[in-house]
């Protein structure tokens, strides 16, 4: 809420917004990377989202929800980036993101990453926000631009796709 107070008190300027934006860059990058599986594209998406957010800051009605709003902008940039390079998108884990670790662990991790990558944009978004960025479901709904119930239902479906054999309540812990 300190951010909100700053946002209301200070005029919108490059330095003001850069100060407000800084804490959001890292989660934005993690979201973009999980969505795009490409570090360069993710960084581009975050930079574009930063500028877009700076331009549209005045339109933000509930300025207390700066983080979900900004992540929503990042998510839109990721969707656009995927559309723009649709023909070049690998539905799977890019080679540069593979890791060298224990064989079984690598295979298991690769399977899960591949399963996440196979999810559609909206499903993947709620999964990444909820499980990876540890956001509460109401903020996930705000980022996704859906109602709480619809977001929860989408999350259930996505979890079933990732782990069909896992009980939902157990998975959501």
């Amino acid at each position, binding site marked *: 809420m300190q951010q909100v107070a700053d946002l209301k008190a200070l005029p919108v300027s490059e330095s003001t*917004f850069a100060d407000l934006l*800084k804490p959001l860059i*890292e989660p934005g990058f*993690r979201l973009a990377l999980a969505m795009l599986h490409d570090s360069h594209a993710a960084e581009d998406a975050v930079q574009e989202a930063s*500028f877009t957010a700076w331009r549209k800051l005045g339109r933000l009605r509930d300025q207390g929800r700066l983080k979900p709003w900004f992540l929503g902008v990042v998510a839109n940039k990721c969707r656009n980036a995927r559309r723009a390079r649709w023909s070049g998108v690998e539905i799977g884990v890019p080679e540069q993101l593979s890791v060298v670790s224990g064989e079984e662990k690598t295979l298991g991790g690769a399977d899960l*990453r591949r399963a996440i990558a196979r999810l559609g944009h909206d499903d993947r978004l709620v999964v990444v926000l909820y*499980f990876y960025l540890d956001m509460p479901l109401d903020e996930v709904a705000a980022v996704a631009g859906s109602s709480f119930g619809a977001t929860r239902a989408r999350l259930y479906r996505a979890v079933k796709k990732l782990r069909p054999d896992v009980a939902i309540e157990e998975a959501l812990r």
Partner: protein
Amino acid sequence: MNLRAEIHEVLDEVAPDSPGLVARAEAHVNAQARNRSARQVRRWARPLRGSLGLVAAALLVVLLAGIFFAGRWWRDTHALPQSVIQTTLTNLEHRPLLFPTIAPGAACPTSPIVLYPRGGLAIGDGPVYFIDRNPGSVSSWGSWQQLRFVYWATRGGIALIRGRDLGSNKAIAFAQDPLGASRITAAGANLGADQIVDKKVQRRSEAYFRDPGNSPPQTPALFPLETVFVGLPAGASGCVGLQFDGPDFTQNFVISWSHSGL
């Protein structure tokens, strides 16, 4: 390991460090903001450019309209009113025709061909020079030729052109050149319609050089060739006398209709 922890692990494994990302994002925002400011300045200037373009177009229209109306005003205020022209023509018509008489069977006393001061040959010693002719056409009424003159006006005022066929003493006719602009106007009595080079014309009893204005050009080279169609009725002898009565001169010469050129 629950699903949340698994996802953390598999995604963190492939998440590269991105040192300086915050600084780069900030620089990107600042750079884009500066570009945006420049674009906004240009956007402010855009409607202004449109307005200036409209003003320029309006000024151009006003200028062209001014030239147009000024030209009409100049023409209207400097051209002789029709009544004045008619009065002047009537006065000039009172001057006697000074054509030579030709005895029956005598040769046509054509005027001598002289060196035209601008070069070449001409008939006449000024201020009117007969320069050339073009064969016109033949109709049921008679034959037509396009005669080309230069009128070295020394002062303002119209100059009347009259003529006769000297061998038969028949009146000749004049017609406004239907082929192009000319400062010779066919005038006088309307003698009927005729056809010249597939164009309908009116046969008139006389013609006149239009008023060159109070400041005629001082350089002979600036006097343009003026054309008028002259018609000779069927049965005429072809020995044609032309008389020019201007504000301060009377001039006449005789040409042969059968000649080509002069």
